[in-house]
């Protein structure tokens, strides 16, 4: 199993380590609930070095990326980032990713750990049409530390040289110095809170991590990261997104740029789906009398399966069971009452507005 530059630190500090995306990653440091609430009320620190990074450079880089993903990387300013699905021709999703514009002709794609190999093959296959673009996989050299929560900005500012407070959401400083260490400082995250993601070379990871802990950020594992992103209704690949679920069904229509000049992979299928209308979609559920987990079935009155729970947990912020599920469009209006089978027991779930949690 692969490790990150911080794996030994996690082991020494009581983390429960489990395999995720081929990496040994911290799930929690004792309490998912406490780590979750630390992010909602203070600041949590996440090792997300398992994420993959590809650098795309050259005169064809922006056109190549515009063809690969549904959003519009060519429209980025320098030092701005975007979120985008990357689709198959059939409209299903290869992966969802962030794209950073490092310079006019240099971009960084940040992909899910479990999809690094698949994405690399996909990008290599389609890059052949763009001789003026080269792609390198720098995933193994790069660490990624996220600091998230209402006090994250103060903590980063206390350790950073220069002004970081005015850094806008989905913008980044490519050559920031935080904790005495060179980082790419990005105002992004996956928790529904304000915060930053810091990309840096493996060799500096432990030093930066310890500075952040000393400055008041609480180490938090992937368990809390999952409950935080679910409350904020942020999709997770393999759950709300997959080769069998399109961005339109997942509610990611705003990240599909129908107006772009060239075409993109999946364009035809998605246009067709948009025109005929989606027949199923991801909805948020308030689950009564149990916790609905990923893979549990949504059924009708005759107990015929009509949908599937894609993610479900006990929400630490709301103190109740919440879930996301892929259901027929006719069951998707807010207030609809659905039935979920939990270990053979029929439990009611009400379709609710999402996100479940929104920061003030």
């Amino acid at each position: 199993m692969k490790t990150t530059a911080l794996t030994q630190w996690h082991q020494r500090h009581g983390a429960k380590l489990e395999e995720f995306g081929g990496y040994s990653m911290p799930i929690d440091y004792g309490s998912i609930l406490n780590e979750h609430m630390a992010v909602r009320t203070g600041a949590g620190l996440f090792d997300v070095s398992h994420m993959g990074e590809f650098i795309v450079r050259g005169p064809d880089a922006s056109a190549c990326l515009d063809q690969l993903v549904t959003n519009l990387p060519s429209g980025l300013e320098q030092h701005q980032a975007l979120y985008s699905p990357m689709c198959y021709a059939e409209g299903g999703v290869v992966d969802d990713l962030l794209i950073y514009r490092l310079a006019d002709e240099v971009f960084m794609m940040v992909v899910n750990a479990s999809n690094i190999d698949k994405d690399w093959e996909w990008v290599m296959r389609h890059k052949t049409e763009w001789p003026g673009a080269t792609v390198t996989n720098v995933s193994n050299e790069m660490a990624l530390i996220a600091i998230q929560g209402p006090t994250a900005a103060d903590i980063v500012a206390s350790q950073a040289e220069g002004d970081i407070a005015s850094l806008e959401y989905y913008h980044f400083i490519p050559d920031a110095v935080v904790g005495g260490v060179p980082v790419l400082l990005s105002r992004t995250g996956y928790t529904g809170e304000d915060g930053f993601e810091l990309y840096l070379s493996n060799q500096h990871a432990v030093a930066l991590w310890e500075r952040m802990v000393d400055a008041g950020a609480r180490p938090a594992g992937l368990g809390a990261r999952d409950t935080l992103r679910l409350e904020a209704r942020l999709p997770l690949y393999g759950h709300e997104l997959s080769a069998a679920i399109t961005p339109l069904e997942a509610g990611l229509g705003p990240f599909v740029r129908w107006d772009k000049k060239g075409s993109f992979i999946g364009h035809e299928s998605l246009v067709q789906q948009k025109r005929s209308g989606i027949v199923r979609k991801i909805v948020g559920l308030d689950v009564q009398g149990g916790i609905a987990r990923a893979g549990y079935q949504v059924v009708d009155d005759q107990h015929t399966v009509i949908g599937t729970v894609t993610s479900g947990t006990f929400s630490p912020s709301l103190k109740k069971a919440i879930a996301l599920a892929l259901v027929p469009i006719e069951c998707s209006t807010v207030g609809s009452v659905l039935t979920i089978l939990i270990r053979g027991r029929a439990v009611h779930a009400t379709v609710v507005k999402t996100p479940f949690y929104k920061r003030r």
Partner: protein
Amino acid sequence: MNLPINLRFTVDHEWIDDTGRVGITDFAQGALGDVVFVELPPVGTALKAGESFGVVESVKSVSDLFSPVSGTVAAVNTELVSQPELINTDPYQAGWLIQFTAPFDVSQLLDADAYKLQIEGA
């Protein structure tokens, strides 16, 4: 690790005391993490040793509970409905799950030393 010597244990990390109260061990609650939901059988349920009688759910996962003995459920800890975290904070007292009516046979169960060996080997 907290391991009271007056209890008997299963390899599945349940304990039972001489009043017939059943719970999960300190080791089990630690491995599970924050317990947020418990599903238990109604009073009067007849159980066989080794039979699944309910679940405990942490934020992340669901774990089956297995009956340490054969017998009838005489009482259920209803406090756990509103305070499932008692399983984490007090696994051998306030965090008990169900209670069996006497008599019940604990001769097949592990004592504290044998259970300790079991989890240290794991």
